[in-house]
């Protein structure tokens, strides 16, 4: 089924509202999922589950990190949990919706979810739906 951008955002927003109990108007594209909407680790599971059901898609766990790692062409991704400079550059490219000033030296892999915006999930869904449509053609 083809969705408009507005329909996609509405469904993504609904997933956040239902999973976190926040108000609709708090769920804007640039809202940070952890710092602005107050999500915790298990909430990410709930959000992903709701989005997967809403769009009948499968969101691979750790997809963004994997994309950044794949883009490194075998170069070192992290040392003792801290992202390398190369990894930071690739992550900036993969997460272009995030303010690049937040993807800085010293960023730890475990802190990547703290960068996630509502827009991160929206873009993930758009990409999955696009891939799905391409595969059906």
């Amino acid at each position: 089924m083809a969705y408009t951008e507005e329909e996609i955002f509405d469904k993504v927003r609904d997933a956040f509202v239902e999973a976190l109990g926040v108000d609709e108007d708090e769920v804007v594209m640039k809202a940070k999922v952890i710092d602005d909407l107050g999500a915790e680790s298990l909430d990410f599971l709930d959000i992903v589950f709701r989005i997967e059901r809403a769009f009948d898609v499968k969101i691979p766990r750790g997809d963004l990190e994997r994309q950044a790692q794949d883009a490194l062409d075998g170069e070192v991704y992290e040392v003792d949990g801290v992202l390398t400079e190369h990894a930071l550059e690739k992550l900036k490219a993969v997460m272009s919706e995030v303010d690049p000033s937040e993807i800085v030296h010293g960023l730890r892999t475990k802190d990547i979810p703290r960068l996630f915006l509502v827009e991160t999930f929206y873009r993930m869904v758009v990409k999955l739906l696009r891939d799905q449509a391409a595969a059906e053609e």
Partner: protein
Amino acid sequence: MLRIFGLRAGLLPLALGSSRRQLSEGLHPSNIRIITELPRIVGDAGAECSGRIVGLPSLPEVLLAHQEEAVRLMRTAAMQYGVGCELVGLGAVCAIVGLRGEALAAGLPKPVTTGNSLTCWASAETVCKLHAALSARPGFPERVLIVGFPGTMAEALCEVLLRRGLPVEAYHPSFPKRLERALLAMEKATGATIARRTDLPEALAEGGLVVGASSLGGELAAMKLRSGTVVVDVAQPLDTSEAQRRRPGLLVVEGELVAMPQAAGAQWRGALTSAYNTVVGQGAHRVFACLAEPMVLSMEGRRESFSLGKRIDPARVEEIGALATTHGFGVRELYTGRRRLDEGRLAAFGTTGR
């Protein structure tokens, strides 16, 4: 007599003969394993229940990555292995995937419970016992510091402790709006004030009674804990490290165990098969509170999804605790390192911090 059905997952099936490779490849109903039968458990008020505990064949990371399939597998397990059972209890990862039990409950003609309400009650009881034993120690901070916000258990435990009159401090690095709203609502409901702490090393440097209640564990593992600190570790996986749990001068108490009813006796001990002891067991006299919750509901004849989803209702926490007490479950003893905490050691700790 109601029959209950307990579902657990995680590494449990490894101990039951599945290889790590099998488990990481996918979710196959053919690997579902019966961990033990609970033939007849008698509570102290004479009520009984029976049931079965079943393990799901998968690693936690596989279940978390394939939630829809995990819910389907849980449904299959409950339908095929839970024939005659009237209540389904979820443990470990099963209580997390699929909207923390809600997705399974929506597709199953039987009530489902995660056991989180009784877990919260057991934790609160543990904290209160320790607080009573330790608060007289000179210089011991009166407050209880809770780490793990905005986790479900941390929030629920905070409210329960406030309602019981304990002074609570909450740690979070930034207190986002949703958490702040939740804390304000608790303050309004109880008339108490919750001190907000944003600097964890600073808060831990004060020692005292600390509760680790994060959702994914490990929250305290890398932190410096002051000698004399008492930690109630409610998290699964645990918030403290193995080294911290062994360190002299620190006392780490398990926070989610309840004692079985005295009357449970030989029948209960008969259920403690080697598989049970390996994958679930806490010994003959105690059990994870999440497993005890469906037993209590069963003894009460309550066919209802008591604990489901993100929210744990403090009123229901106290309700299930009262019911559990009626049937002989309770926090009669405290445990550290899977062993009973000797009263002498607690008293000594209360006096000297050692």
